[in-house]
């Protein structure tokens, strides 16, 4: 039952069956991870760009910490967010634990350092190129940051995709703060964990295949958007 061909057929069958439960899980996975990445970009891209442009004492240390945080263990982030959102925690009154919002917060925390660190690296290279131009225009830091983000937008879309890849694939954080509640907080990765624990390895693998397909689809969509935008820009 766990040979590649039958797994593939099972995955195809699941996708084409129009099973509302599966589509609900897929939709929630996308909603949670895409929202988390959007928030991470809003915070991480300006932060990364600022670190590429502005020099201040201790900047090297900040960059080293940021780079290290790319490897934050999801289970630890999940635990911290759980303790913060627990009814006995500081944000308990919001009642956010075991909701998709809690999962978005956890994934955003996980992905923001990754996006900031990768953005900084990519924009620092661009900044070297633009340095003289910026000097001649006497641009302020805010304008430099905005210009770098805009001109680096294609490589930054890859940075965002890296963040999305980390978010959609992680299970450690969302299973703690979401609780893997059916129809409420069950996403692809936690569903796979559940089916594995039921010993239904074939179904777990088929879901895994669908998850990989989903990641491929999102990547293809972003790359095509990039290409279309470039064509427009140079037409």
């Amino acid at each position: 039952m766990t040979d590649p061909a039958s797994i593939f057929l099972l995955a195809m069958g699941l996708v084409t069956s129009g099973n509302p439960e599966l589509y609900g899980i897929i939709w929630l996975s996308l909603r949670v991870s895409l929202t988390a990445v959007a928030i991470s970009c809003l915070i991480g891209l300006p932060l990364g760009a600022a670190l590429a442009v502005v020099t201040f004492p201790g900047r090297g240390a900040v960059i080293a910490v940021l780079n290290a945080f790319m490897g934050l263990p999801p289970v630890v982030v999940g635990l911290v967010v759980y303790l913060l959102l627990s009814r006995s925690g500081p944000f308990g009154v919001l009642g956010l634990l075991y909701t998709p919002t809690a999962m978005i917060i956890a994934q955003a925390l996980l992905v923001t350092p990754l996006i900031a660190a990768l953005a900084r690296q990519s924009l620092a290279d661009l900044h070297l190129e633009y340095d003289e131009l910026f000097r001649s225009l006497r641009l302020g830091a805010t304008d430099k940051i905005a210009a770098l983000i805009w001109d680096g937008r294609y490589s930054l879309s890859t940075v965002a995709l890296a963040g999305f890849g980390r978010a959609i694939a992680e299970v450690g954080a969302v299973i703690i703060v979401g609780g893997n509640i059916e129809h409420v907080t069950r996403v692809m990765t936690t569903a796979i964990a559940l089916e594995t624990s039921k010993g239904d390895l074939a179904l777990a693998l088929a879901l895994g295949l669908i998850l990989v397909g989903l990641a491929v689809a999102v990547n293809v969509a972003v790359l095509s958007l990039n290409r279309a935008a470039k064509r427009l820009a140079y037409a």
Partner: protein
Amino acid sequence: MRLTSIAATALVALATASTAAHAQDPFIILQSTTSTENSGLFKHILPIFKAKTGIDVRVVAVGTGQALKNGAKGDGDVVLVHTKAAEEKFVADGFGVKRIEVMYNDYVIVGPDSDPAKVAGSKDAVAAMKKIADAKAPFASRGDDSGTHKAELDLWAPAGVDVKAASGDWYRSTGSGMGQTLNTASGMNAYALADRGTWISFKNRGSLKIVVEGDAKLFNQYGVMLVNPAKHPHVKAKEGQAFIDWLVGADGQNAVRSFKIEGEQLFFPNAATGELKKAG
């Protein structure tokens, strides 16, 4: 500055959107165990309760130890677990209102077909555990402070086996849920203690089969408690109590009784209003 305020607005919007979505349907959070979730019991009984009351029951399935801890923190309205001593402590400490017995099933010792410890067919769980230890046959333990883990430790103690000393050798503490532990046992041809419900619905058995069953020591009682609203005022006492009343009443007990996999009944209702204890 502008970007951070946009981010803050987005977060607030998200938070309100999700709370608004939750306000539509009355729901409670049930902290329960992997054994009940993995067996499929909740999928069977919760829709019946929802149809009757309109209340959605959201299940968080963890080990008994963690379920009680989450309940004590107020992260749940009702707790349904299976370790009597720990449940009574939970109520005595003021975290739960009252413990009510709901149903039982039993544990089984599963092991590989080859049966290196020669325990197959035995009805004496403690003696079987001793033989497994003497043979140094691999044993996969939950190791996660769950109800099943505590039940397993309660068998090792009278067998006079120090599993802590054997950990990493023949005793493998997996620190994971029931299903994961069975996956591990199946992968390394190890013995394991499992609740019958999870075992019957478990699909990746490999060469594992039941080797010991029917000992009174393998009895597994489930109890339900409302998280104390006096301690955590946000607890949905009305809806939570409605669920408990239903579960231990005739309708809930019948729903539990009617849950079968391949014709086999997995849980036996025995609330005070239901039938008497059978095993033991």
